[in-house]
C-alpha cells in the first residue's frame, strides 16, 4: 500500500478538536433557541415550556422602537454603502498600477483597524465639529463603517469581467452613462445584492460604533439588548436573540430555494 504523505490533519488531536469547535460554535445557538421558550422569570433557569415571552416582547414598546431604529439605519445604510462602494470600485478600475494599489489599501485598511479606534475617532470628530448625535450622524457613521465591506464583493466581481466588454460597449457607440446603465450595473446585480446584504447585517449587528455615536433618540437594538442585560438577564433577551437567528435563516432558505428553482427552470427552458 502506498504511504500517504504526512500532514497536520493526521495529528490525533485534530478530529476531537474539530468536533469540539463545532459543538462550541452551535451549542449557544441551541441554548438560546430552547431558552426562548422558557416559562421561568429567570433567563438562565429552566421552568418549563412556554411561548409567553414571545407575546410580551410584542408589547414591549422600547424594544419595538429600538428595532425600528436599527432597521431605519440598516436599510438606507445598505443602499448608500453599496452605491458608494460601486462608485469606488468602478473608479478604481480606471486607475492604474501604484495609484490603484494605494487606493485599494486606503479602502481596505478600516477592515483591519480595531473598530474602537474608528468609533472614538468619529465621536471626537463629531464633537469637534459640533455635529449633534442624531439619526443622520448615526447613519453616517454606519455607512462609513460598511463601505470597506460593501466594496469587496463589487471589486471582485468587476475584476472577473473581461475588460474588453466595456471597450466593446464603447466601440458599439454607447456613451459612458449607457455603458453604466446597460452593461456595468446589470452585470453587477449579484455583487450589489451581496454587498447590500453584508452592509445591512453589519449595521444591524453593530454595537461599538452605535454605542459611541447614538443619542437618546437613536438607541439601536444591540444597545437596547445590552441595556436589558445590565438590569439582570431577562428572558426577553433570549427571545430577541432567537428571533434574530430564525428570521435571517428563514430568509436565507427562501432565497436559496428561489434561486435554485429559477436556475432549474432556466435550464429546462434551454433544453
Amino acid at each position, binding site marked *: 500500500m502506498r504511504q500517504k504523505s504526512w500532514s497536520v490533519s493526521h495529528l490525533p488531536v485534530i478530529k476531537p478538536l474539530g468536533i469540539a469547535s463545532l459543538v462550541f460554535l452551535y451549542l449557544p445557538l441551541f441554548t438560546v433557541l430552547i431558552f426562548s421558550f422558557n416559562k421561568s422569570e429567570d433567563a438562565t433557569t429552566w421552568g418549563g415550556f412556554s411561548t409567553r415571552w414571545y407575546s410580551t416582547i410584542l408589547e414591549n414598546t422600547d424594544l419595538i422602537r429600538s428595532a425600528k431604529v436599527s432597521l431605519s439605519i440598516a436599510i438606507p445604510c445598505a443602499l448608500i454603502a453599496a452605491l458608494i462602494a460601486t462608485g469606488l470600485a468602478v473608479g478604481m478600475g480606471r486607475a492604474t498600477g501604484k495609484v490603484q494599489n494605494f487606493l485599494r489599501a486606503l479602502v481596505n485598511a478600516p477592515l483591519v483597524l480595531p473598530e474602537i479606534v474608528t468609533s472614538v475617532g468619529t465621536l471626537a470628530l463629531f464633537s469637534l465639529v459640533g455635529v449633534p448625535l442624531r439619526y443622520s450622524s448615526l447613519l453616517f457613521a454606519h455607512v462609513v463603517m460598511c463601505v470597506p465591506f460593501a466594496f469587496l464583493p463589487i471589486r471582485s466581481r468587476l475584476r472577473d469581467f*473581461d475588460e*474588453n*466588454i466595456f*471597450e*466593446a*460597449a*464603447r*466601440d*458599439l*457607440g*454607447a*456613451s459612458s452613462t*449607457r455603458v453604466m446603465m*446597460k*452593461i456595468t450595473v*446589470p*452585470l453587477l446585480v449579484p455583487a450589489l445584492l451581496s454587498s447590500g446584504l453584508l452592509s445591512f447585517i453589519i449595521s444591524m449587528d453593530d454595537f461599538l460604533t452605535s454605542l459611541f455615536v447614538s443619542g437618546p433618540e437613536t438607541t439601536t437594538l444591540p444597545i437596547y439588548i445590552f441595556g436589558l442585560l445590565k438590569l439582570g438577564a431577562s428572558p426577553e433577551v433570549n427571545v430577541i436573540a432567537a428571533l434574530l437567528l430564525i428570521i435571517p435563516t428563514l430568509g436565507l432558505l427562501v432565497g436559496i430555494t428561489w434561486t435554485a428553482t429559477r436556475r432549474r427552470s432556466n435550464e429546462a427552458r*434551454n433544453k
Partner: protein
Amino acid sequence: MEQEQGWADLQINALSKSFRDPKGAQVHALDGVSLSIPAGEFIVLLGPSGCGKTTLLRSIAGFEKIDSGHINLGGNRIDLLPPHKRPVNTVFQSYALFPHMSVAQNIAFGLENEKIDKNEVKARVGQVLELVKLTELADRKPSQMSGGQQQRAALARALAKKPKVLLLDEPLAALDLKLRKSMQFELKRIHRATGTTFVFVTHDQNEAMALGDRIAVFNQGKLQQVGTPFEIYTAPASEFVANFIGESTLLQGKISGQIFEGDGLRITNLNQDINANASAKLIVRPEAFTLMQGQTSCGKVEIKEVIFAGDSLEALLVTQSGHEVKVKTGASLLSQLNVGQSVELFVDVNQIGQIA
C-alpha cells in the same frame, strides 16, 4: 448586405506611441507608422507579439491615445474622437460579448445606441444573423454557445453597425485549427458580401497569407513591408520579413558580374535585377533550391537531415563552409538521399531575392 455609407479610405500618418514597461524603460509600440488602406481592402497586420500591430488597431478604434501623427478616414480626421463616435467597429479576441444578453440583444445593443427605428433594428439584426449563419441561435446567451458561434456573434454585432472599417483583433486565435480554417473562408465570404474594409491583426503568417489582399508586416513598432502576399513572400524587403513569413536561407557574400560567391556556394547567371555588391545578402526560399538536375548549379553540399512531408522532401544541407541551407525538393528523391551523403545543389535564379 450592401454598403450604404460612402466609401472611405483609411490613412494612417506618422503614428507614434510609446509607453513605459514595468521596469520603467521606454517602449516604442508604434514608431512613425504610415499606412494607406483603400476602402474595401482586406489588410492583415502581421508581426510577432509586441510588434505594435494591436496598438495600431486599438489606436484606430480609439482605445489608445497616440503620442503623435493622425488618422484620417475618408478625409476626416478621427484620431481625436472618442471610441463611440468613430465609424469603426472592433471584433475582440476574447469576443467580449455581453454575458447577460442574448445574441440578438448583443447585436441590437449597438443599433439602439443610434437613434434607429425599432423595426429597422429588428431587420438589421435579422440580416446580420443570416450573414453569419446564426439565425437559429438568436435567443441563446453567449455562455450557451461554442467558441466558433460566439466568434460569429461578435462578428455580427460589429457588422450590424455598418462600420466603414471593421477591426479584427486576432479573432481566430482561440479556435482550433479546423474551425480556424473554415472561419477563414467565412471571413473571406463575409468580406466580399459586405464590401467593408477589414483590418485584421494576427501573428500567424499562414492566416495572413490566406486572408489578406495585402499584408503589413510589423516589427518593434515599425512597419517593415506592405504588399500582396505574393510580393511579401517572393520579394521580402528585409531579413526579418523573409524569416517571419515562410522559411528561407540567407546567403551572404560578394556579387560581381552577375556571379555570387559566399557561404561556400557559387551561383552564376544571376538575374539582371540583382545588384553587384561587395557584401550582398540573398534570400532563397526552400522551394527555389532543388537537388534535381536542370537548374543552375550552386556547388556541393552535404545532407544533414531529410524529412518526408508527403508531397515533398524537406532537407537540411550544409555547404562546404558550414552554412545551413533549407531545401524543399521532389518526394521521388527519397530513396536516393542519405544523411551524410554529398550531393550537388541547384537553384532557380528567377526566385532569388536580394535584401539591403
